[in-house]
């Protein structure tokens, strides 16, 4: 499978002021986004997410390293023609109406005439702004601004969609709509690369995620792969009609309701010994649930581990 995005050893520093000197925003960041996948780009504030995205759309230039989109340099127009981009907390030309703004963006991408009008109408409908297309953008709410931003990013039917915090400013229904929209893009074979702070959204829709901190990759992989690397957690085993006393290192009883008891088994090895014990004592297995660490906890733990030593 070919790659839509490749970042290799990207470095970028910003000059602050004479007293503070420079701040390194990217510190050897590398990542790969395969064609057709949804990639969630996670990281705390100031981790370098927006800086990386701005390099990808040629708003910033890296000090060192390589940024490639479809194998090409994003500073070239023909490469950027294949990208749709939504900036973080976007602001648009507020004297234009939503429809005029889409017409403007479409023309910059080479669209004209009836095709442009049809696409604008369809996208305004898709992002829930059909009723507000002729309203000036200065009258839009934050959520409406975000929606017209998503519409302009998709207008020219790009192969790669880069969204910087697309869920920000949206209510729960809006977030669900954007999630559906992203999933719809994947179904149509598009690649979606988006940054977010909202981990449940990532867990729901991403094929792979990358977690960055202090300008470099901390963890990358599918949600399943990352959770498999999570710390070993006890397994919950519910049994019925089992009253034999067990070694606590094998299984610890945590609750009891009627004839049903809940045990926490510390590992797979312990489980392999505990189940025969239950069956030997005529107990009945009700359920076995591995208690995996959630993505949110995993992210917090990885970031804490990555904290610089004091």
């Amino acid at each position: 499978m070919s790659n839509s995005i490749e970042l290799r050893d990207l470095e970028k520093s910003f000059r602050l002021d004479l007293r503070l000197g420079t701040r390194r925003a990217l510190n050897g960041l590398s990542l790969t986004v395969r064609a057709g996948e949804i990639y969630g780009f996670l990281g705390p504030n100031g981790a370098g997410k927006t800086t990386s995205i701005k390099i990808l759309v040629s708003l910033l230039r890296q000090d060192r390293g390589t940024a490639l989109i479809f194998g090409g340099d994003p500073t070239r127009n023909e490469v950027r023609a294949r990208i749709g981009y939504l900036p973080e907390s976007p602001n648009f030309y507020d004297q234009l109406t939503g429809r005029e703004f889409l017409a403007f963006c479409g023309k910059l991408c080479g669209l004209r005439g009836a095709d442009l009008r049809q696409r604008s109408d369809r996208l305004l409908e898709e992002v829930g702004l059909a009723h507000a297309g002729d309203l000036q953008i200065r009258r839009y709410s934050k959520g409406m601004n975000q929606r017209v931003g998503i519409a302009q990013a998709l207008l020219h039917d790009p192969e790669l969609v880069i969204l910087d915090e697309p869920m920000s400013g949206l209510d729960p229904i809006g977030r669900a709509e954007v999630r559906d929209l992203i999933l719809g893009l994947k179904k149509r074979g598009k690649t979606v690369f988006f940054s977010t702070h909202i981990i449940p959204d990532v867990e729901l829709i991403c094929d792979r995620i990358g977690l960055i901190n202090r300008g470099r990759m901390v963890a990358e992989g599918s949600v399943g792969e990352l959770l498999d690397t999570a710390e070993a957690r006890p397994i919950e085993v519910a049994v019925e009609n089992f009253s034999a006393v067990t070694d606590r290192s094998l299984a610890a009883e945590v609750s009891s309701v009627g004839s049903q008891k809940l045990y926490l088994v510390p590992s797979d090895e312990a489980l392999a010994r505990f189940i025969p014990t239950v069956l030997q004592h005529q107990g009945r297995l009700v359920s076995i649930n591995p208690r995996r660490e959630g993505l949110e906890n995993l992210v917090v733990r990885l970031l804490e581990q990555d904290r610089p030593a004091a």
Partner: protein
Amino acid sequence: MNVLTIAAQTFTEARRNRVFYSLFLFALVVVLSSIIFTEITSVTVDRMLKDTGLAAINVFALALTIFAGVGIINREIDRRSIYTVLAKPITRLSYILGKYLGLVSIILATSTLMFVGLLVVMKVYKTPIHAGIFLGFLGVLLEVLVMGAVAVLCSTFTTSFISAFICAAVYLSGHLSTEFLRVVRKSEGIRRAVGEAIYYLVPNLERFNFKYQATYDLTVGTTTLLAVVVFALAYAAAALLGAVVVFQRRDFR
């Protein structure tokens, strides 16, 4: 094509801007009220009309250019509206040219409306309309072309406030450059070299001042006129080239 798209968007944004709109209406009223001066002065009506009318158009055309021009790029950077545009498949050169074209078109359109207003007043007062008045207006337009490019250049690297200050300084020194050179040539050494460098850097805006010809219905030779037009276009092109060079290197944090 992208240049025209950006120019059209810049034109529309400015046209719908209430402050710009108010300034334009105020300017139109001032131009039309040049009638009042004709009532309170002993100078002949037609001379007074042309003098005050053209001066008012000049002042307001420049005010509108500086008002709309000094923030034309940096305001978009501050508001982050530029991110969406520059991520599209357009060159930064097209963006600068589009912004400049949009700016000068709105100023030329409003100046032309004011000028038409002046011609109507002249017609009402039965003042003869000669080529001189058109020459005077051409001078205003050329000055707008040059000062618009200076404003765009400034707005690529500094704030609106500082841009406005630089533009005002360029305007004033541009009208006083001949006197400035006379003073500079009296000095010697490094002072003279620096002074002469400033003289050649700042546009000599007096070249566009045809108000004397407008008032007294005079004309200038074709060669002189052509030289002035070429000078205006060349200076504007140089300022825009500077803007492109600065803008190409800019990071948008």
